[in-house]
């Protein structure tokens, strides 16, 4: 598996898109710091961008890489390697190279602006950790979709739909249901509903760390009341791990029956 990972990673590290992505984050970091001139304020703006954008890029890269390397996967399948190792190696390769683009692209401008001397270093660190989690989660989800869908166009469609669902529509539905059922106790419901969306979960995790109650929103407030800050962070991190682990389990299960 490590060999496959190594070569997928090499391949992606030389792809133009990795550099476009890296360049984008680099530019974003510099522009944000230039406009805000304050590391901790820039972190908040950055959070809003990372939480929507990394899932989108992860989703698109994931399906694109799977479908583009399909024939090559077939060549690898004829080698004496387990099929689950091939796919998992590719998956980690994609997620890792995306994460590297994110960490370096944002890390460089923030370090140059004196991140190490600022109090925001933990906030920023957590932001990168969450960004990495979102990469791993959404690449895993999109790999699941691609593995189950033979048709490339349909696979792309489903993947984008999944992102749209989790990043935009989910919140809308969530709000509507809170309004509709506001006569009932909704604490447990909203806690559960947050767990089922990695994007919401990441947002709350970061806001708990930043400790800005004004931005927490209803679920954030419930979360904080229910779990407290440190336990809340720990449990949301744990659920994020589950969000990586469960799609990987399904990937394995699907691979056992899949025809290439």
């Amino acid at each position: 598996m490590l060999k496959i990972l190594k070569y997928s990673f090499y391949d992606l590290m030389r792809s133009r898109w990795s550099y476009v992505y890296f360049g984008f984050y680099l530019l974003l970091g510099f522009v944000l710091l230039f406009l805000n001139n304050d590391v901790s304020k820039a972190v908040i703006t950055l959070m809003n961008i990372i939480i929507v954008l990394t899932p989108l890029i992860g989703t698109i890269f994931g399906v694109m890489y799977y479908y583009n390397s399909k024939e090559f996967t077939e060549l690898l399948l004829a080698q004496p390697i387990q099929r689950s190792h091939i796919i998992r190696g590719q998956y980690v390769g994609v997620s890792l190279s995306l994460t590297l683009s994110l960490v370096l692209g944002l890390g460089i401008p923030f370090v140059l602006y004196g991140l190490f001397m600022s109090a925001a270093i933990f906030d920023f660190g957590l932001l990168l950790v969450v960004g990495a989690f979102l990469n791993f989660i959404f690449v895993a989800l999109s790999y699941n979709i691609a593995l189950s869908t033979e048709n490339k166009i349909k696979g792309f469609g489903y993947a984008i739909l999944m992102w749209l669902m989790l990043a935009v529509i989910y919140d809308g539905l969530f709000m509507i249901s809170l309004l509709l059922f506001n006569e009932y106790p909704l604490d447990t419901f909203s806690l559960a509903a947050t767990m089922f969306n990695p994007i919401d979960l990441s947002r709350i995790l970061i806001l708990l760390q930043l400790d800005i109650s004004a931005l927490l929103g209803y679920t954030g407030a419930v979360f904080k009341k229910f779990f407290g800050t440190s336990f809340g962070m720990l449990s949301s991190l744990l659920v994020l791990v589950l969000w990586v682990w469960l799609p990987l389990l399904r990937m394995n299960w699907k691979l056992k029956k899949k025809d290439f």
Partner: protein
Amino acid sequence: MIEIKDLHKSFGKLTVLDGLDLSIKKGGIFAVLGPNGSGKTTLIKTLLGMVIPNSGSIALHGQDILGKHQYRNHLNYLPQIANFPPNLTVSELIKMVKNLRPKAANEKGLISLFGLEDFLSKKLGNLSGGTKQKVNIVLTFMFDSELIILDEPTTGLDPISLIHLKQLIQQEKAQGKTILITTHIMSFVDEIADEIVFLLDGKIYFKGSIEVLKKETGHKDLEAAIAQLISKQYA
């Protein structure tokens, strides 16, 4: 060497392999033929473990291979469409495949045979279809394995490379290897194959030498003989 028993595979409602039995002895060149959609590629892919059959068994040297992966170290496979990671160079790809198999490789002779020296440092994404196929052939023949499976090996090759490919196949045969080939080019089959395995409706319809086939169908020409076999499907 290969023993396939009662192999069934269907994709949804479409039955591709329908109780296929096949036994192939060691040594020689076997052409797997059949009309489009007769299950040639599916048969080869089940042998490679890429397609998982609904039922049946496949044994290589008397050992069941379904669900295993180590046995693939003893076979070389040339896929139909060669598409490699576009950002790796040719030499990196060769190094990678060598790295993935715990066995010695001899790629130098093949690289010069197909004139690929100048392409070694080029990215795979920039190569033409024929050159990619040559790389594909180098990757397949650089290992010394007793079973070689070639899926449409002639695609995109220029006449000189085609001659080299035929020589390569003959050399492997002389070493007592078993070679399975699928192709639609009958002159190629006529020239190199020892035996023909003809698939129709997911079963083996004919298995035997070219002479026997010609005698049975009453045609002197292989292409006409095969055409007559295929026409039975429409009868």
